[in-house]
Structure formats: structure tokens, C-alpha cells
């Protein structure tokens, strides 16, 4: 066990990278990236998801093509595009970190657009019709009636996507950002006879975060299950119709 406990002397490097003297790295970089990409991706995802459900072909088709193409591209290639190739085409300089964030945000946007779309489709159509019938415009009906209900149902799916995105932030190791994987590799190169211990520490970092996110997701799922949109039971509908006659 000693070979493992002596690794805890490096905890600062695993968690923060060379932070006070250099850029933030280690597990903190993964977490920061995951949070940034989730929020950027959520904004873009709502736009894309709503666009895919639009009545207008000129909105629906571009959104659908965007989502399908990005979903079919490996996240690593998206990161390459945003970190290396788009800046070189545009002739601008983009810090590597922000390139990686943009690439992963594009990835997140496509997946979250699918979640948003599935969530909206799961809201019973009667809700939208009822909102229109009470005099709301289509935008009001979507914003005030459909989306709040859809978001509540989307929460568990968002939570499990957040876990998967957090794991995907590890790919920034490949373009040379010092995230948790990179810190583990650096330590293992400094201490070649302690390789297994450094890898176990690296895995533990991911495991602890993902596991705790998963338990939060489970609680959310239970809550949402209790709160889900009240469906009128078929008996009640029959009853009402009978009374009207």
C-alpha cells in the first residue's frame, strides 16, 4: 500500500497542475472545461434543438444537418478543428485551452440539442395546444409552458451527459493541455518505477468525481420521476366526456 500512499505527496500537482506558478491544470482543468463546455453547449443546444423542431424548413434543415454531422464526428477531431485548423484558416491566434473548450462545446451542443428535442417531444402535445388556445403566441407557449416542463424531464439526461462530457474532457491530453491525464503521465515519466501508482491516482481522480456526479444524477432521477408531467389518466377523460353528453 505504501507505493500508493507516497503518491499523495503529489496531490497538489494532480489536483491543480502547476497552478500558482503556471496555468491551472490537473483535475481542476478537467472540471473547469466540463463546466464551461456544458454551459456553452447548453445555450447552443437549446437553439439547435428548438431549431430542429421549427415549422420552417430553412431553420429545421440546417439545424438537423449541424447536429447529425457533429454527432457523427469524433470529439477528438472537433477539438483538432477548433484548436488548430480554424485558427489557421482565419489567420488568428486562439489559446489552446479555448480551442479545446470550443471543440468540446460543439460536441456538447449537438448531444444536448438531441436531449432538448427528445424532452420537448415528451411533453404531451395538449399542453402546447392549450397554451395556444388560451391566447398565447407560439413563442410564449414554448417559453412559458412547454420548456419549463421539458427541462424538468430532461434533468436526468443532462446529468448523465454531464458525466460523459467530464470523461471526454480527458481527450485534451492529446493536444497537450495539462489535465489530470497529462499530470499522471508527467509524474509517471518522472518516476518510472512508480508507474502503476500514478495511473491508479489518475483513475481515482476520475472515479471519485464521476461516481459522485452519478449519485447526484440518481437523486435527480428519483425527484423528477415523482414530479413528472401529470398525465390525465384515461379514466378521467372518459368521465369528463360522459358528463358533457
Amino acid at each position, binding site marked *: 500500500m505504501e507505493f500508493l500512499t507516497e503518491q499523495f505527496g503529489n496531490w497538489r500537482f494532480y489536483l491543480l497542475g502547476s497552478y500558482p506558478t503556471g496555468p491551472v491544470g490537473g483535475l481542476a482543468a478537467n472540471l473547469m472545461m466540463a463546466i464551461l463546455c456544458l454551459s456553452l453547449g447548453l445555450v447552443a443546444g437549446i437553439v439547435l434543438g428548438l431549431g430542429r423542431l421549427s415549422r420552417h424548413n430553412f431553420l429545421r434543415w440546417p439545424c438537423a444537418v449541424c447536429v447529425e*454531422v457533429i*454527432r457523427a464526428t*469524433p470529439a477528438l*477531431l472537433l477539438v483538432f478543428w477548433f484548436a488548430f485548423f480554424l485558427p489557421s*484558416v482565419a489567420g488568428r491566434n486562439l489559446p489552446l485551452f479555448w480551442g479545446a473548450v470550443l471543440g468540446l462545446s460543439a460536441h456538447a451542443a449537438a448531444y444536448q440539442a438531441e436531449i432538448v428535442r427528445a424532452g420537448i417531444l*415528451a411533453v404531451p402535445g395538449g399542453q402546447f395546444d392549450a397554451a395556444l388556445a388560451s391566447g398565447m403566441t407560439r413563442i410564449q407557449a414554448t417559453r412559458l409552458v412547454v420548456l419549463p416542463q421539458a427541462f424538468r424531464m430532461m434533468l436526468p439526461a443532462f446529468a448523465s451527459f454531464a458525466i460523459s462530457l467530464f470523461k471526454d474532457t480527458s481527450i485534451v*491530453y492529446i493536444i497537450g493541455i495539462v489535465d489530470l*491525464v497529462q499530470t499522471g503521465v508527467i509524474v509517471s515519466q518522472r518516476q518510472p518505477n512508480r508507474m502503476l501508482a500514478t495511473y491508479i491516482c489518475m483513475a481515482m481522480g476520475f472515479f471519485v468525481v*464521476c461516481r459522485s456526479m452519478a449519485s447526484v444524477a440518481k437523486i435527480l432521477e428519483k425527484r423528477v420521476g415523482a414530479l413528472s408531467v401529470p398525465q390525465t389518466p384515461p379514466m378521467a377523460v372518459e368521465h369528463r366526456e360522459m358528463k358533457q353528453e
Partner: protein
Amino acid sequence: MSQLHYNFDWGIAFRHPYSDWLVTGIEITLLVAVVTSILSFFLGTLLAVMRQSRIWIFRMLASAYVGLVRNIPGLFWLLFFYFVFPEILPFGWGARLNACNCYPVVASIIALTVNNSAYVSDIVRAGLLAVPAGQREAAMSAGLSRSQQYISVLLPQAVRIMLPPLSTRMIHNFKNTSLCMAISAPELTWATQQIESLTFRGLEVTALATGFYCAVALTLGGVARMLEKHWQTRIRNEEPWTSRLYGILD
């Protein structure tokens, strides 16, 4: 509209050494994707059946494996099997592995199988649980043994239920092969980066690679959707909507 700051040269993909690298890259990518999909399907099914076993040690082992693998990124397993696994093997087997030219490809196959099988096992498990309990009881009363129940009654029905999440998972696995460049397995993404570092013409070949990944992933998705329509079962319609997202999440 400002001018693009890049002169395209698409011929790079057809010039002598580079075209060979790209073709080899496509071959390796497809090889790794197909082999890991098949292996992880069998391993995942085995794990799913183990998780429903009557023997507690099997249940515990399988759940521990799935819990461990699902909470650690796939890239970790690639690095682990490439760098660490040879070190901890006894009797100098590790040195022999490292000496082998094809070890990066072998390590990526092992790592992606390990990673993917955990997700597949969850999908198969959900599929098995969705088969109505009466089916197993009927099979039991028809005198089938437990293995016969799984092979001839439960799994064939479960496959149809789990086809949509399973196909998304396999497409995900295909896309994950791009991570193998981290351990220098000569697959497509690795070839594009190699060309980039030698000629600074990575943009064109990366565009081609992106097109290749998109084409394969979208085709597979289309085939899966056709099969799904062909097989549409009643059980599927009674699933909650979130199960449609099962395979694409984590």
C-alpha cells in the same frame, strides 16, 4: 468577407507516402472498430448475464467491473494497457509485448473492448429486463436449462429491444477509435496528424478524415434505423422516452 489565410492543396492526400498512410489508417480504424465491437458485444453479454446470476460472487464481480470502467474515461484505459500493462506482467512477457510492432493496435483493441463492454453490458441488461417475465417462466416450464433459456428465448428477444441503444453505442465505439492515436496506433487520425507534422498540410487530410468518420457513422446509423423499423416490437413502444438516449449518453 476577409480572405482565407490558408492555401489549400488537396493533392496532398494522393501523393506517394501519404496516400498509403491514409489507406492503412482507414484499414486499421475499421479493423479496430469491427474487432472491438464484436469482442465487446460478447464480453458485455457475458457480464450482463453474470449480473443476473444466482451466484453472488459473479454478480459482485460483474457489477464492480462495470462500475469501475464506466466511471473512468476510455483514454485512461488506452494509456493503461499501452504503458502500464506490459510493466506489471510477470516473466518478461511485457518486454516481449513492447518489442512487438503491432502492440499499439493490440493494446487499443484490448482497451476499447474493456471500455465498451461495460456500456454494452448495461444495454444488454436493460434489454434482458425488458423481456416480459412470462417468457422466462414459459421457457422454464418447457424444460429448458438456464443457458438454453438465455440462448434461445431471452437473448433473441432482447436483441431486438436493445438494437437502437446498441447501435448508437457501437457508433460511439467506432468514433472512439480516433483516441488510439494517443498510443500511436497507426489509425486514420494518427495518419492525419503525422502528415500534419511532416508537411503542415493537416487541414486537408483532417477534412477528409472527418468526412470518412461522418460517412461511416451516418451510414451505420441509417442501417440501424432501417433494421429498427423492420423489427419494431410492441415492447419498445412502452419504454420511457429516456431509454432512447441510453446509448448516446456516457
